[in-house]
C-alpha cells in the first residue's frame, strides 16, 4: 500500500463524510436556505428592470454573476473561516497527532468545500432558472464553461482563504478579514449591476481580482452570445479570464503550502488551550 495513495483515499473519504455532515446539519442548511432566499429576493426585485441599452432583464445578468461571486465567497471566506475555527477547536491538532493526518485533513477540506460549493451553485441556479426560464438556453458548451470557470475560480481563491485562515488568531478575524474585502470587491465587480456603470479606474481595480472574472466567466456560460456587447470591450474575454484566475491560482498554490506548514508546525496543545481560553472570554 503506497502511503500517499492511502492518505489521498482517506482524505477523499473524510471530505465526503464532512460534506454529508454539512448537508444534513440543520444549522448549515438553515444558513444555505437563508443565502438562497436573499439571492432570490434580489432577483425578484430586479426582474422588471432592463439593462441600459438592451432588452435583457437585469436579473438575467445578476444570476450568473451571483454564482461567480459565490465561488469566491466559498473559496475565501469558507476556507479561512473553517481553518480558523478548526485550529481553535483542536481538529487540526488531532490531525497533526496521526501519521499523514494533516495531508488527510487538507484533502478532506478541499473536497468538502468544493462539493458544498457545487451543491450551493446548483441550488442557486435551480432557484434562479425557475424565475428566469430564458436562461436555460445555454447549450452543452455553456455548462462546460461554467464548470471550468467555477473550478479555476475555486483554485484561485481557496488557497488564499487557507492562507488567511492560517494567519489569523480567531475565527472572528478570519470572517472579518475575508467578508469585508469581499463585500467591497463585489460592489465594484459588476455583480449586482453592470460594471460599465462605474468610473474607469474602479473598473481597472476590479479587474485585478478574481470576483469580476468569475462573474464574467459564468455570464458567458449562461447568457446568449449577444449579451457580450454589455461587457468591457464587448467580448467574453475567455483567455483573459483563464489568465487572471490561473495566475491567482498559481500564486496561491505556491504561497499556501509553506504558510500551512508553518501554521501546522506551531499547533500544540498549549497553543490551543490559549485560544480556548480566549474563546471562552469572548462568549461569556
Amino acid at each position: 500500500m503506497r502511503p500517499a495513495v492511502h492518505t489521498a483515499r482517506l482524505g477523499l473519504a473524510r471530505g465526503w463524510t464532512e460534506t454529508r455532515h454539512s448537508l444534513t446539519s440543520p444549522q448549515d442548511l438553515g444558513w444555505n436556505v437563508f443565502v438562497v432566499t436573499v439571492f432570490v429576493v434580489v432577483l425578484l426585485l430586479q426582474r422588471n428592470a432592463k439593462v441600459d441599452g438592451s432588452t435583457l432583464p437585469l436579473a438575467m445578468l445578476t444570476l450568473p454573476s451571483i454564482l461567480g461571486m459565490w465561488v469566491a465567497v466559498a473559496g475565501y471566506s469558507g476556507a479561512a473561516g473553517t481553518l480558523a475555527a478548526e485550529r481553535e477547536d483542536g481538529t487540526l491538532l488531532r490531525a497533526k497527532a496521526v501519521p499523514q493526518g494533516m495531508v488527510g485533513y487538507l484533502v478532506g477540506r478541499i473536497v468538502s468545500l468544493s462539493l458544498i460549493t457545487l451543491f450551493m451553485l446548483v441550488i442557486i441556479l435551480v432557484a434562479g432558472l425557475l424565475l428566469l426560464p430564458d436562461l436555460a438556453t445555454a447549450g452543452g458548451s455553456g455548462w462546460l464553461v461554467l464548470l471550468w470557470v467555477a473550478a479555476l475560480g475555486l483554485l484561485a481563491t481557496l488557497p488564499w482563504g487557507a492562507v488567511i485562515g492560517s494567519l489569523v488568531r480567531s475565527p472572528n478575524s478570519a470572517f472579518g478579514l475575508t467578508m469585508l474585502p469581499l463585500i467591497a470587491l463585489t460592489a465594484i465587480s459588476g455583480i449586482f449591476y453592470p460594471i460599465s456603470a462605474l468610473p474607469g479606474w474602479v473598473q481597472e481595480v476590479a479587474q485585478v481580482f478574481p470576483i469580476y472574472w468569475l462573474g464574467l466567466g459564468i455570464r458567458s456560460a449562461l447568457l446568449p452570445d449577444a449579451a457580450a456587447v454589455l461587457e468591457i470591450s464587448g467580448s467574453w474575454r475567455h483567455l483573459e479570464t483563464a489568465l487572471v484566475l490561473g495566475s491567482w491560482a498559481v500564486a496561491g498554490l505556491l504561497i499556501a503550502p509553506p504558510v500551512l506548514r508553518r501554521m501546522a508546525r506551531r499547533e500544540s496543545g498549549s497553543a490551543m488551550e490559549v485560544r480556548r481560553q480566549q474563546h471562552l472570554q469572548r462568549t461569556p
Partner: protein
Amino acid sequence: MTVLDKRGAFAPDGAGDPVIEVRGLRMRYGSRDALSGVDFTVRRGEVITLLGPNGAGKSTTIEILEGFRLRSAGEVWVLGVDPAKGDERWRARIGVVLQSWRDHGRWRVRDLLAHLGSYYRPYATPERERPHDVDELIETVGLAEQAEQRLVSLSGGQRRRLDVAIGLVGRPELLFLDEPTAGFDPQARRDFHDLVHRLSDLEDTTILLATHDLAEAEQLADRILILAAGLVVADGSADQLARQVAGQAEVRWSRHGERFVHATPDATGFVRELFAQYGDEVADLEVRRASLEDTYMAIAHRHERAELEAVSAR
C-alpha cells in the same frame, strides 16, 4: 534501533531499552526559562508520572517529546529519534491523548475512531497490528453504548475516554497523556486508572503521564518525576521519594498522660533509645513515615521559595 546503539553512554542498565532520553533539555520563552536543564530516562514498559504544580513545565516537556514544540537546547531521543525531526513512521509509533474540546462534533464515535485509525494501517508490523480493532477499543474505554452517538452529545467524561481511545487507536509503543483525568468524576477516574494498568500490562505500552494530582501519580506510576521551576527535582518510586527526599519520620508517644512528638531520620534507633530509657512508661506509640504528599509539598515549596528569592534578587 541502531541510533541507540551508537550512543553507548546511554546504554540500558538492566530493565528495558530506553524509550525516552532527555539530557539538558531547556526551553526559553522570551527571557523566562520554562525548562532549565531537564534530564531523565524512560525504559520500555514503564509507567512514568511527571508530577508538578501548574506552570512547572510538564506540558512543555510533553509537547517537546511529542514533537509538537521545538526545544531551545538539549538532547532528546524518543524511540531513538529526535522528535524535532520525527517522520510519519515515527509518528505512527506514538500515541497522544489530547485534551479535546469540541472538534469533530458532527462525527459519530465509531466513524471517527475508524477514520483516524485508518491512517495507521500502512505502518502495521508483524509484531504490532495497526490499527486497533475499533469495536474492541470502544468496549475497552467503556463507550459501547455511545458508539453511534455524535461527539457533540457526549458528556465531558465520555469525551475524555474517547480522547484516550483515539490516542490508542494506532497501538502506540509509547503513549503521552497530559492531565488525563482533569474533570473526571471518581468512578471515571477509577476506570481510567484500571485502563492504564491494563495497557502497560497487556500491550507493553510505555506511558508518560503528566499530572498535578498526587494520588493519581501514586496510583499509576512505576516511577515519579517531580518537576518544579523547570527542573527534575526528584526521581523514584513513590516509596523511594518519601524516603529519599523527606527522610524524616514522625514518632509520637505519651508518658504519664503527656503527649510527645519527635521528627527523626532514624525512627527505629530513636524508638530503641526511647524504650531503653523509659521502658514501660512509653504508651500510645506511633511511627509515621512522611507520605508522598509531605514529600511533594516539601519539594515544591523549597523550589518555589528558591525561585522567588532568585526573582527578588534580580
